[in-house]
């Protein structure tokens, strides 16, 4: 089993942001998640609750990075739309997390529009903000400069915590191509961050 770049190389003192348990990349986890999705599609709220608990960290990270701030309403909106649109979900081999990722992207865009911004703006960290918040804002600004596919790879791997195989399934490409895109994205990010330093 190939370990994702994220999970495999995480230093010991950093907790890995993964799918946190049942929804992982192991066959049993995937099968368990499929069963939960099927039950939730039939209206089983408990099953949807399990999906919520599984994917809440990843969705929170996505929203946090996209909006640049914590927004529990936006996180809740992602799952609300997922619940309402669950019947339209078809298991075609693409991870359920990728479907949620698509919803989260739209929710973030809507949220930004509501704030009067059509596109996420570069925001330099303001003085006095918490260091990690400043770091997230800096990284977010750099990620927004990436081409769409590279940005998706970065978000799916680092924020959602998918493996190369899962990202490849979600994007309709090969794990090797995902790997190449990831390193190209990191190189581009390094250049942007260096320019801003």
């Amino acid at each position: 089993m190939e370990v994702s770049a994220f999970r495999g190389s995480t230093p010991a003192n950093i907790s890995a942001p993964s799918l946190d348990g049942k929804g992982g990349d192991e066959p049993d986890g995937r099968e368990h998640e499929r069963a939960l999705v099927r039950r939730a599609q039939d209206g089983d709220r408990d099953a949807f609750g399990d999906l919520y608990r599984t994917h809440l960290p990843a969705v929170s990270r996505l929203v946090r990075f996209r909006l640049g701030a914590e927004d529990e309403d936006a996180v809740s909106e992602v799952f609300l739309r997922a619940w309402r649109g669950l019947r339209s979900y078809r298991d075609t081999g693409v991870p359920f997390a990728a479907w949620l990722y698509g919803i989260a992207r739209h929710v973030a865009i809507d949220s930004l529009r509501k704030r009067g911004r059509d596109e996420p703006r570069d925001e330099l960290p303001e003085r006095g903000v918490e260091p990690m918040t400043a770091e997230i804002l800096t990284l977010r600004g750099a990620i927004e400069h990436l081409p769409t596919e590279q940005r998706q790879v970065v978000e799916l791997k680092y924020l959602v915590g998918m493996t190369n195989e899962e990202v490849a399934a979600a994007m309709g490409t090969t794990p090797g191509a995902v790997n190449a895109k990831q390193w190209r994205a990191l190189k581009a990010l390094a250049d942007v961050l260096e320019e801003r330093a």
Partner: protein
Amino acid sequence: MSELDRDLGAWAREELSREQLLAAHGTAAATFVAVHDRLTRAAAAVAVPAVEAGWAALLARIDAPAPVVPLRRPRPSRTLSIAVAAALALAGIAYAASRGSHDGSPAVSPATTAPAVAGVFSRWHGRGAPGPTATTAPPAGSHRPSGSGPSAHAGGSTPAIDGGAGGGSAKPVDDPRDRDQGTGNDGSHNDHGSGNNGPEGSPPPESHGR
């Protein structure tokens, strides 16, 4: 795939240590590793909302009725546009009616405008059905020989205002005594819808009285 790509993949799979990677590729690999570490650390630092409180709030939203968003909002500009369009249409009709009443006819009647419509209609359909004037009583003073009604014309020859529509047999030059201008049998003679090509009461060159 370059050697660096391959080794980065091996490092990601923990088949290669960080030290080995940096020793083999130096600064190039260090750049990737640094960004990778920053992303990893920032993602891990994102606070996750309280799960059960969030789930309870979500359940409340699920149970709440979905907001009804009207698909179309009433727009004042639409009402105004419709009003202007209606006014223009009415003005056009009134103008057309006033033109018809100034061509020498004593009054505007449905018979003066209907033939044009009927003529166009019969042209579109190429049918021999008589136009509205065929069934309406002719104005006083006109006469129509028996057996020579419009239904006798091939091609539904309801006369039209332009003199050319409705049967297509009207001549381009009208008799100066003719008052109907090709619009009907309201004048001193009946041209049978085929034009003013002869003296009063003379039959058209063809098709009548058969």
